[in-house]
């Protein structure tokens, strides 16, 4: 197990590639991390939308349950999702959201031990995108 201060380098969970169907990442172990910063880089879009969500694995029967609300993406760009205790779009004492519009969701729960992300396509058109994650101790 890697504790506080562990060196977690960014890694690509879904490499940049054209995809027409809904896709899930491989199963990821949090490896002691409390949170994560996800980067969804959408290079080309066609029609409909793309939904980003994170699902946790329960180990009793091996099923997944969704832990984050869907983030709906409709245009090219780089989208950031922050997960973990203490994350906030508007920290206490600030009078407004201090994050840029690139930051589309902040989720205040710790990561589960095992999880995956899913990118659900709204239709069968070919979108080119990639997703990376940086675990945060």
């Amino acid at each position, binding site marked *: 197990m890697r504790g*506080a*201060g*562990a*060196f*977690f*380098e*960014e890694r*690509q969970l879904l*490499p*940049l590639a054209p995809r027409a169907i809904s896709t899930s990442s491989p199963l990821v172990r949090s490896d002691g991390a*409390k*949170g*994560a*910063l996800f*980067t969804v*880089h959408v*290079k080309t879009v066609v029609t409909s939308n793309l939904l980003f969500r994170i699902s946790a694995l329960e180990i009793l029967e091996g099923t997944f349950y969704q832990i984050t609300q869907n983030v709906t993406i409709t245009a090219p760009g*780089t989208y*950031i999702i*922050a997960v*973990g*205790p*203490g*994350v*906030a*779009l*508007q*920290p*206490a*004492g*600030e009078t*407004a*959201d*201090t*994050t*840029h519009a*690139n*930051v589309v969701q*902040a989720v205040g729960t710790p990561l589960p031990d095992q999880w995956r992300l899913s990118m659900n396509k709204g239709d069968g058109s070919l979108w080119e995108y*990639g997703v*990376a994650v*940086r675990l*945060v*101790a």
Partner: protein
Amino acid sequence: MALTQDQIALALGTYSALEVDSLDLRAHGAAGLYVTLHVKTAGTSTVAVRLQGKEPFEGTYYTLNVDATVTVASRWVWVFGPGAIKQPDGEAAATVTTNFKQFVGIPIPDVFRVQLAKGDTSDWVLGVTVRRIYG
């Protein structure tokens, strides 16, 4: 290896361009960042500190915080990371000084740079340091 000491992101110097970028920096496992902007001589208009992540697919940069501008010489601070707050629970108001320009409550990217966004091309004498904050 944790890097806990101040690092110079932009050396003290005269800057006139509308946008000035640091070299790419690494988080080295840190969750947050304490950024100090030392403005020795202010020009006209404004300057803001942007933290920009570098996405690993095409190497483009994206901005993480909205602009919080300064107009005068002083030492100015930006704080990034989960749990960064200006006003702790139980305090009636912010307990940090007005040197603190902005708190941004999300983790820093693995690869990032500091960008100075200036309101015009006047000369400013300034420098920027970063200190990584570990969870």
